[in-house]
């Protein structure tokens, strides 16, 4: 009964989305206020219906209703409750429901937080989001129904893939989807602006917070995916440039370019058409990612079970949505005004150079991901494009971007003076270069890449310090605290986010440069020393889990004779799917991770064991977290809080503009 209610709720949601996607847009085009006012209640109604459907599916999982086909194929009676619920998004159909659910969350958020927008704009934004949800709902109801029944009901389920039975599964997909789907808001803003012809700096100002929030979520989502792969897959890697990983990284690159481009459009009214195009690009890449993961066009560890029929539907949807937006763009964008002028060497110029570099990097990732498909389609043979390609191509493209990250915030708007900039930055450059050249020798090994990585990271930090000092020197207020308080939060957000990048670079550089791995055969009582730490193997015993049986090893780790920790790697055999999984033991630390992976029993009662010492690896995900926090800080800036509190602009627009350029 409950699954049928869920199914019916989805059908109703589809009807609502048809209404939402058509009436408000028409109303906005002809100026009919009544039609436009349909948008808000329709969006909220759709949210409630999808929420109902989502809860119905959750209920089916919670009570182990194996008469629902989807529940029977992704769950099991022995599966613990948290994974039974996470299994909602464990396979294709349910993850689509999650997509639509998160889209409706963003829709309802926009409906509540957009009171300062003109009615026509709000109507168009919600309508565009409604059209997107229409496509997904239609997709679900035709070829991917999560509520399909299995008659007769299965006695027990096929179980969730053991790799997914992990806390990461509970948080990573929702976070990632919040980011992916969040770019639909920026997309909707862009389309609404193109439709209405109101493409100006104000549009950029409204778009920015939504885009930044989506970007924060995506940053955390991608970082979580990487962290999860690290501790779950058992071989210590954290990024493989796998097609599905790239599918989540490309929207991130586009989103990063977008938040920088919106800064130019917001401040100087320039490059509006480009910002709009980037917004369309970011969301297009989200949709492309959805296609790549489910169509079977590319091979990946992360891909859902594939079905070309589903792939065709998504491709047609993709073509319609993106093709339509790009036609609209080609039609309306040429009429957009140019905004304020600026020279090539200026903060605007540098922000746009950042855009060029990010888009080139994005293009490189897209090229590498799709190239095997291109060649195969043209019957030119089959190749593989893997980490060696991406690492070779990505680093040279991002290095200038990071170098610019130090100069950009210090450059003046409209026209910057290069010799003057060089003067202001000379100490930062000297310190970065000197430290980067000498530090690797102190650690133990010098390679050009390590030196480059460290230099870029230190460069970001030193230039941030220089920028902050200059800022404080010009701020109002007599005391240091007063001057610090005068610095707006958006500036702190930028500093924090940029420093997050520096932390990330340190993590990557140190791990790649100084990681140590050792494959040993250990008998009980034997020791092995890796990276200064001594690991003593103290045997293996059998441990029973809720739905698995494991061989659990015990390792006592000491450094300079003092015991540091005890580690328990496992080799699990899950009861239902009869799959063996390696559960590595990780001892995380601020400056290093210790990683132990249990292999196979070998002759003589010994075990093959893999030991790793990974310096600074947690800085990789720590850096991403700091980046996201920077984004959050930037959104909490006063101008957005003021905008939320005030219904209409009480202050004349001109004064508002003046205030913005001062901060």
């Amino acid at each position, binding site marked *: 009964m409950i699954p049928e209610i869920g199914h019916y709720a989805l059908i109703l949601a589809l009807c609502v989305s048809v209404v939402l996607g058509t009436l408000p847009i028409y109303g906005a085009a002809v100026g009919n206020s009544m039609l436009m006012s349909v948008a808000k209640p329709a969006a909220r109604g759709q949210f409630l219906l999808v929420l109902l459907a989502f809860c119905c599916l959750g209920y089916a999982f919670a009570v182990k209703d194996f008469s629902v086909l989807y529940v029977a194929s992704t769950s099991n009676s022995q599966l613990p409750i948290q994974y039974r619920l996470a299994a909602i998004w464990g396979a294709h159909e349910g993850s689509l429901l999650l997509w639509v659910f998160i889209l409706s969350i963003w829709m309802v958020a926009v409906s509540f937080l957009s009171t300062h927008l003109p009615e026509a704009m709000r109507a168009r934004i919600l309508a565009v989001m409604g059209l997107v949800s229409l496509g997904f709902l239609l997709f679900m109801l035709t070829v991917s129904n999560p509520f399909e029944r299995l008659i007769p009901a299965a006695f027990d389920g096929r179980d969730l893939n053991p790799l997914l039975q992990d806390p990461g599964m509970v948080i990573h997909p929702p976070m990632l989807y919040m980011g992916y789907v969040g770019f639909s808001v920026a997309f909707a803003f862009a389309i609404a602006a193109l439709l209405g012809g109101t493409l100006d700096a104000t549009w950029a100002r409204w778009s920015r917070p939504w885009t930044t929030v989506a970007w924060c979520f995506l940053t955390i989502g991608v970082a979580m995916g990487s962290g999860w792969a690290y501790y779950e897959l058992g071989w210590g890697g954290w990024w493989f440039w796998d097609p599905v990983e790239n599918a989540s990284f490309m929207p991130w690159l586009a989103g990063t370019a977008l938040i920088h481009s919106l800064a130019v459009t917001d401040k100087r009214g320039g490059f509006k*058409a480009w910002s709009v*195009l980037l917004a*369309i*690009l970011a969301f*297009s890449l989200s949709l492309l990612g959805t*296609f790549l993961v489910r*169509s*079977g*066009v*590319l*091979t990946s560890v992360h891909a859902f079970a594939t079905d*070309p029929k589903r*792939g*065709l539907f998504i*491709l047609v949807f*993709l*073509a319609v949505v*993106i*093709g339509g937006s*790009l*036609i609209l*763009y*080609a039609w309306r*964008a*040429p009429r957009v005004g140019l905004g304020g002028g600026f020279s090539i060497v200026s903060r605007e110029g540098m922000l746009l150079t950042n855009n060029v570099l990010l888009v080139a990097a994005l293009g490189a990732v897209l090229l590498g991901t*799709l190239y*095997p*498909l*291109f060649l*195969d*389609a043209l019957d030119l*043979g*089959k190749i593989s494009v893997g980490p060696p390609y991406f690492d070779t191509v990505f680093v040279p493209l991002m290095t200038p971007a990071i170098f610019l990250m130090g100069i950009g915030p210090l450059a003046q708007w409209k026209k910057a003076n290069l010799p003057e900039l060089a003067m202001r930055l000379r100490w930062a450059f000297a310190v970065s270069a000197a430290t980067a050249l000498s530090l690797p020798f102190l650690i133990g090994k010098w390679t050009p890449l390590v030196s480059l990585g460290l230099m870029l990271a230190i460069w970001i930090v030193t230039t941030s310090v220089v920028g902050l000092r200059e800022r404080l020197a010009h701020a109002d207020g007599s005391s240091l605290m007063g001057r610090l308080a005068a610095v707006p939060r958006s500036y702190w957000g930028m500093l924090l986010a940029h420093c997050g990048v520096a932390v990330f670079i340190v993590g990557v550089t140190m791990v790649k440069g100084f990681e140590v791995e050792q494959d040993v055969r250990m008998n009980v009582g034997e020791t092995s020393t890796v990276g200064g730490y001594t690991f003593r193997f103290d045997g293996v015993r059998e441990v029973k889990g809720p739905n698995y049986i494991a061989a659990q090893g015990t390792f006592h780790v000491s450094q300079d004779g003092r015991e540091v920790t005890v580690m328990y790697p496992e080799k699990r055999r899950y009861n239902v799917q009869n799959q063996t999984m390696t559960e590595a033991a990780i001892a995380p630390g601020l400056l290093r991770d210790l990683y132990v992976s249990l292999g196979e029993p070998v002759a003589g009662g010994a075990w093959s064991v893999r030991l790793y010492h990974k310096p600074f690896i947690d800085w990789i995900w720590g850096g991403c977290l700091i980046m996201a926090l920077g984004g959050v800080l930037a959104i909490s800036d006063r101008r957005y809080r003021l905008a939320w509190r005030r219904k209409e602009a009480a202050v004349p627009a001109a004064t508002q503009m003046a205030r913005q350029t001062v901060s």
Partner: protein
Amino acid sequence: MNRFLLPLAAFLVVVGFLAVGLTLNPRELPSPLVGKPAPAFSLPQLHDQAKVFSPNEMTGKVWLLNFWASWCGGCKEEHPVLLHLAQSGEVPIYGVDYKDTRDEALAWLQQHGNPYPLTAVDEAGRVGINYGVYGVPETYVIDKAGVIRYKQIGPLREDTLQAKILPLVRELQKQ
């Protein structure tokens, strides 16, 4: 106006490729050995361990080389097609038992029928690697000069046999 249409044009090109991609199989690996001489080997025979089989014994004849194993599901699927082909006598099929145990292979042929005049045993899988085998079943069409002319990846189906393989075999036999 032109440069504003560029994104749309680029997008349509990508969509075109993705559409073609839906019809392709990214995991199928065509063989680089097609058009090259079949790698030489000398393997013991399944039914008579004292004797060996080598492809150069087959020079002057057009023949099929089929890699199979008793543990392989797809081999069971294609077996009726092979038996039917063997009965027709149009082209001989020689088997290579890949990474299998002798007893299980013999029992399997006993149970399902034996279309092969003889079967060679590749226990370690080395000959398979030389032929670029990455999964069984795989079948090669080899011509009179000992050159590989076609590789069938996966189970041999009746329609592929009639549409592609038999016409090729007939053409090669005329040479």
